């Protein structure tokens, strides 16, 4: 009985630890809602770590172009992301038109893009740290100088 309890405790601990590791980088959230009758509704919440891990499986030759383009801008991207992370929540861009509303903002360490127009609403939220890591990986995929 005690052995079973220990095993259960171990399994629970592993699950909690795994959950902690998986959620340590936050979550990427995507929601798409088409307003027409019978329109598509998509709601995805994926641990940001999946983005990070997924990039390891992309063949390096497929990332070389992106790598070459992103490398010169790495210091700028890092500086911008660091500054955005140290700032509080900020609405960077807002565009309002007659039938469209777009915002790009930082909320709780994530960059959030919201689009609301006649046809659909789209919400994408990605943790800044995940973006930083992903860009580092893309930059590292190119040939070493």
């Amino acid at each position, binding site marked *: 009985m005690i052995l079973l309890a220990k095993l259960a405790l171990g399994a629970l601990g592993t699950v909690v630890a795994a959950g902690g590791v998986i959620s340590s980088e936050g979550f990427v959230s995507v929601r798409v809602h088409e307003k027409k009758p019978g329109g598509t509704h998509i709601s995805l919440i994926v641990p940001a770590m999946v983005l990070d891990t997924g990039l390891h499986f992309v063949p390096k030759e497929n990332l070389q172009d992106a790598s070459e383009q992103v490398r*010169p801008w790495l*210091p*700028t991207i*890092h*500086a*911008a992301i*660091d*500054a*955005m992370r140290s*700032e*509080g*929540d*900020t*609405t*960077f*861009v*807002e*565009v*309002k*038109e*007659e039938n469209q509303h777009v915002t790009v*903002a930082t909320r709780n360490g994530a960059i959030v893009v919201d689009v609301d127009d006649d046809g659909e609403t789209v919400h994408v939220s990605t943790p800044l740290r995940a973006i930083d890591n992903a860009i580092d990986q893309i930059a590292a995929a190119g040939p070493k100088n």
Partner: protein
Amino acid sequence: MNKNSQLGAVLCLLAAVVVMGAVAVKKTAAAATPEKFIHVRVNDVSKGEMVSVNVPLSLAEKVIPTIHNGNLHNGKVTIGNMDMQDVDVRALLAAVASSPDNEFVTVKEKDQEVRVAKSKGNFIIHVTDLNSDSDESNKSDKSDKSDKKYEKRGQKVDITIPISVVNALVPNEKQELDLVAAIHALSNASEALLVTVHDGTQDVRIWIDSQNDGSK
């Protein structure tokens, strides 16, 4: 004696906690110095459009020095062969800065008025152009009849720049403008409306304040 030393230890501990708390509060207060944002707002009444951009000045201050592209390097923009005709711009600015508030230039024409003044540590430039043809795009768009009521309203530009920012933007001997120094000077300046442009159906405003969403 033993009790007294215990009491002393507790009091010391309490005093330490109070001192640490005071230090923490002071640090928090210092950290709570409001972040300044530069806001750009463009309103087009005829189309019902609004674009708002809000950038923390500290972000700009950190990001701009990392950009090395074209004429921009290390936060400085290299301008071309700018011939200042041996005019010492810094001395000129210092003289203007130390002079009392005044309207330095006023030009009035039939359809145009230009005023350059200094007030409360700021350079102020007003330009009013009553005969502006800046609405040509609206005039040519005959399909949008609602634009017609906005035609011929002319153009009005108001610019208010702190003298400290102008000083920072004076080119050095290498013909470079120090953008980071200008942003730093802006973040040290008080909250202010920097630029307003009214042009037919469009209004543009650029200002500095501590709001993170330009809701002012």
